[in-house]
């Protein structure tokens, strides 16, 4: 369905927002995309299944986000499944012209032994776009999530964007590992020293469910529980993204590599442990199912400072 946009930036038909849902699970020994229902704003396009891995593209159905748009998505990765989300184009939140807010919300769930990889495309907040963005990630047991987000304040010809409020809540086995809430709603808030410090772009890569032995790249830090974060502030999206690109590659290879999931007969992948001293650290969990990447590794309690 396509709605038209009026000059005030409102959709001519008021839609009840339907969440986009992607559920991937193992059914009868095979990985199946048991739910691929596109929502009001997104279409889920399967790109292929191989062994216990799946790739799905998220395609916007029309120009995002305008006044009154409330995009929701619910992504569920079942036990022992590896899922990559691919976004061919970014999201643009347009000037809401004081006519009411817009919101974007993703709820991501990863089951024991599962893995979600999502290098999301830039989220561009135009000047005057009143938008709330919320990402919630729940990882169970030995599951992992590797997510990248880039927030861009203002389109290329604009000096500022928003008002924006963007939050992330990451939990492992229900316990909080990363909770943050970037509040750029006040006038001039992007100029405030210590917050954005006048930068337009914030790129963040976070890993939940596993923790490297040490932070090695620029902007990397270990979280207090099983997780790590790398981030960069810059004037341009490509600068911020390239500053954490190395971290993305390293963490993906060490903690979110699909090779161990691709061939069921192939057994555990041994490709990752030797990279940059990135020895996976995981917390002991109840009811862990066997996972291709969960075998033969040191179990250390990472719930420490």
């Amino acid at each position, binding site marked *: 369905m396509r709605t038209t946009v009026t000059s005030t930036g409102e959709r001519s038909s008021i839609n009840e927002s339907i969440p986009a849902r992607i559920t991937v699970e193992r059914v009868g020994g095979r990985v199946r995309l048991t739910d691929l229902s596109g929502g009001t704003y997104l279409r889920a396009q399967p790109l292929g299944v191989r062994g216990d891995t799946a790739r799905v593209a998220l395609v916007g159905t029309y120009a995002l986000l305008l006044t009154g748009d409330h995009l929701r998505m619910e992504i569920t990765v079942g036990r022992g499944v590896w899922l990559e989300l691919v976004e061919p184009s970014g999201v643009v939140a347009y000037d809401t012209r004081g006519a009411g807010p817009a919101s974007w919300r993703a709820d991501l769930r990863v089951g024991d032994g599962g893995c979600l990889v999502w290098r999301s495309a830039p989220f561009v907040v135009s000047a005057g776009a009143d938008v709330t963005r919320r990402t919630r990630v729940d990882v169970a047991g030995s599951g992992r999530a590797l997510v990248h987000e880039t927030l861009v304040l203002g389109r290329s010809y604009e000096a500022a964007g928003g008002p924006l409020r963007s*939050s992330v809540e990451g939990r492992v086995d229900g*316990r*909080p*590992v*990363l*909770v*943050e*809430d*970037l*509040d750029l709603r006040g006038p001039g808030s992007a100029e*405030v*020293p*210590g*917050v*954005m*410090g006048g*930068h337009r772009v*914030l790129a963040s890569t976070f890993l939940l469910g596993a923790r490297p032995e040490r*932070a090695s790249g620029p*902007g*990397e*830090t*270990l*979280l*207090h*529980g099983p997780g790590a*974060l790398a*981030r*960069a*502030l810059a004037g341009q999206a490509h600068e911020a993204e390239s500053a954490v690109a190395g971290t993305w590659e390293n963490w993906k290879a060490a903690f979110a590599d699909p090779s161990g999931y691709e061939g069921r007969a192939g057994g555990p992948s041994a490709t990752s442990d030797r990279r940059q001293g990135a020895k996976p650290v995981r917390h002991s969990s109840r009811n862990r199912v066997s996972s291709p990447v969960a075998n033969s590794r040191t179990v250390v309690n990472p719930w420490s*400072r």
Partner: protein
Amino acid sequence: MTTRLGTLLLADARLPVGGHTYSAGLEPALADGLAVERIPDYIAARLRTVGLTETAASVLAHRAAGGTSAPGGPGVDPEALADGHEALLARSPSAPLRDISGLLGRGLVRLASHLWPEHPAVEALRNLDRSPQRPVALGVVAAVMGSSEDETARVALYDDAQTVASAALKLAPVDPVDAAGWVLGSEAVIAEVAAEALAVRGADDMPARTAPQIEGWSLEQQNRTRRIFVA
């Protein structure tokens, strides 16, 4: 209402808990080019972000320690204390900042363990971690010394502003009188943030106002060999 002596002690840099090692991020901020005349903006930004989060953690710790209730009051809730501590850790992504907060928290634990070794709130604090995060330790110590919740919130925020101001004197050509003026000038922001922190109901509700540039600066400071402050 009179201010408890304990509150004054917590606000005093002469209290031997190691606060002099900390610039509240000012040293790396100046190294990255923060202009001296923007230090008051930096103080306000801290109060509204990390200041709010940490003060809410202190308030929750104060309540978990039984508040200032007389015997027979709500008592100590070690589980609530642990939940608040964990919520604060999840809101502190920078490992070097968690480390320095633990170092300062250990100073308060040492003080409390000497003065009130048998107090159940102090015992609950010790059981959390050998080096609990400073805001949690501050809330417990304030409660044990009889400071009210409101005083605790204000002393936490005052301390943050004063830490920046006094570090500025060692890092930049600043007139000490101007620095005192910055702290006094933050009174309205402190009142606003304290009210917000006092309205927090529980650990899940704890604000998590992010300051990405402060986090980034703390990671840079960690790798510097020539520095005056640890963070």
